[in-house]
């Protein structure tokens, strides 16, 4: 097997949730990027962006985790994440976390070369057709952090529009939060469930086969709600759709 040779090389940060829960999303990301001739590098020991502790208010713990991530990504060129939320943590919230600290400079430098997957494909590589095919109806949910802190959404829609044989159907209230919110899903479980209820209602109203989103965390929330209700609709990460890996994992 030969290493794809291309002018571009990226560092892939699959994020802790993909690494541990959804390796297929990581594999799908590799597949999509390599198909575009992008060489991939995965730094050893890369774990988490530190968002969970940061969102919980535990800044010291977050500082340690995120600081280590900055070190591991130092000098590693463009960084691509299959997650709008973790990319937003690096691009938007590291500035807050590392303000007035020795990491302020390196954090800003890292933020400038960090991309969410669909953003990298469309805005940097200029690709909107990655050769995907899916027979069925697809609806896209805008995961909040990617949408509001990175301005991602247009790119995913452009990519999905080129999935052959797929019918892309609008999701009502596609930009309303699914209720995940990290620890919010546990700490405020009742509100989180109420928000999920509305999201599930909208997903059913979309009359779709596949709910697609750009964050594994929101996907877990929506999939968990669909599965609990015995719905036949599946939830997938956009990378899985683009890499033709929708059926690569159960549920």
């Amino acid at each position: 097997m030969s290493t794809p040779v291309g002018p571009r090389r990226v560092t892939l940060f699959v994020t802790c949730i993909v690494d541990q829960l959804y390796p297929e999303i990581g594999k799908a990301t590799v597949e999509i990027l390599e198909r575009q001739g992008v060489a991939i590098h995965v730094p050893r020991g890369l774990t988490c962006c530190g968002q969970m502790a940061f969102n919980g208010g535990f800044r010291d713990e977050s500082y340690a985790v995120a600081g280590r991530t900055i070190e591991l990504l130092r000098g590693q060129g463009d960084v691509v994440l299959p997650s709008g939320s973790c990319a937003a943590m690096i691009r938007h919230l590291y500035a807050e976390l590392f303000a007035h600290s020795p990491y302020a400079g390196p954090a800003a430098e890292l933020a400038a070369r960090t991309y969410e997957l669909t953003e990298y494909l469309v805005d940097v590589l200029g690709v909107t057709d990655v050769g995907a095919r899916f027979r069925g109806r697809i609806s896209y949910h805008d995961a909040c952090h990617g949408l509001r802190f990175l301005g991602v959404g247009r790119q995913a829609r452009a990519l999905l529009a080129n999935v052959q044989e797929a019918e892309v159907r609008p999701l009502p209230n596609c930009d309303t939060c699914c209720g995940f919110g990290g620890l919010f899903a546990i700490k405020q479980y009742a509100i989180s469930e109420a928000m999920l209820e509305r999201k599930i209602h909208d997903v059913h109203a979309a009359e779709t086969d596949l709910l697609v989103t750009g964050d594994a965390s929101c996907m877990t929330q929506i999939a968990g709600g669909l599965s609990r209700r015995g719905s036949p609709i599946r939830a997938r990460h956009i990378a899985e759709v683009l890499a033709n890996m929708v059926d690569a994992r159960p549920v």
Partner: protein
Amino acid sequence: MSTHSLHFFDRVDTALHDETLRTALNRATARFVGNRSGAIGALSDADTLRDQARAIRAHALSRLDELLVRLAERVEARGGRVCWASDGEEARRYIAELARSRGVRSIVKSKSMASEEIHLNEALERAGVEVVETDLGEYIIQIAGETPSHIIAPAIHKTREQISALFEQHLGMPPTTEVPPMIRAARQALRQRFLRADMGISGVNFGIADEGAVVIVENEGNARLTTSVPRIHVAIMGIERIVERLEDLGVMLQVLARSATGQKLSVYTSIISGPARPGEADGPEEFHLVLLDNGRSQILGGQYAEALMCIRCGACLNACPVYQSIGGHAYGGVYSGPIGAILTPLLQPDLPDNYLLPYASSLCGACQEVCPVRIAIPDLLLRLRADAVRAGKFHPIEKPAIQSYAAMMNNPALYRVGGKFARLGTRLLRRKGRIRRLPPPLHLWTRGRDFPALPAQTFSEWWEERERQRHNG
């Protein structure tokens, strides 16, 4: 029914189980959201207008000391009186003493969040003065013995049947579920209150430093009556609610009306500078401006100063999926929704479960997206969370949980082993590829949601294996 003595989680629970409330919230917030986006969308350059609004508010805050002095001097030069109130107690005492010395028996009030913040009505009623809220929504909740649940629409949680019953009981209105007769009954009853009142108390949307004037925005006309009909007008203004020039209104009134209700301009904007001048036919003979600090002067110096840019439009409430689910009362303070989760801990610091409010957000950012002055609400909520943690206010399980998370994430070996155990554990719990029940505290996840069984191999393991094969092959 008052839910304010309950703990935050109980208030949330009560709200989530109140079907009437959820129906009303859905209807109201959907309408507000639609109106707002229509009004903002119709502008040729809404983004610039919002940038301008933020800049104008920032400018005013950057010279707040100077502008307040100018405002006060010019109000006094026009024959008004100014009370500088450090806290609610000073404001209440000034107004109660004013009412006493002028022999005031009856007061009409138009909407004022600042007066709610300092519980002014209770204090005046204790002093033996009758106080009537005249904004229709405020009046409804006053006779119901409740507090506002929305900045713009205080009674959105009430149905027409509930309101009709209140009007039958308090106004002697014949039974009806039609809205027009209810409106007529309220108009008649409240009109007599206005004509007989000795004092009118209003809030302030903006003070204008250069003009020594206050701006009051409304749709009903009750604020115009409150500030024009009684002999004495008292305006209560949070000290941050100021702009420097009259011309600033050309930006501020436009973003306020569009963000609040989707109107181009509110029906009535009154700009009032002091009491009626000699020669004027009508208007109050006395004008008093109460400048309420209540912690604001110190907030200005800290990491929450940005919250003082807020113009109380309520757009962030309507856009917030958490507010849409639980409504305003669950927040426990006067200010609700995303901005309330910031303002309540800052302005009403004595409420016991304030530290939980910043967690009542999924940090989705819908609030910041609609804020007419672009307040970075999620960032401020995150800072409040950090403050709560520093103050030791969190559930006892959180600290060890976060610390073990951090230890794992910082140590690849531990991360690998820990992940392996977790994956193994979930594989034992799975049924048909999914998990329906996790052990505490994760049972809170599986209460209403399934969880995926974790895979046998992580992405990193797969990647390393692939790299090995590549180099060997």
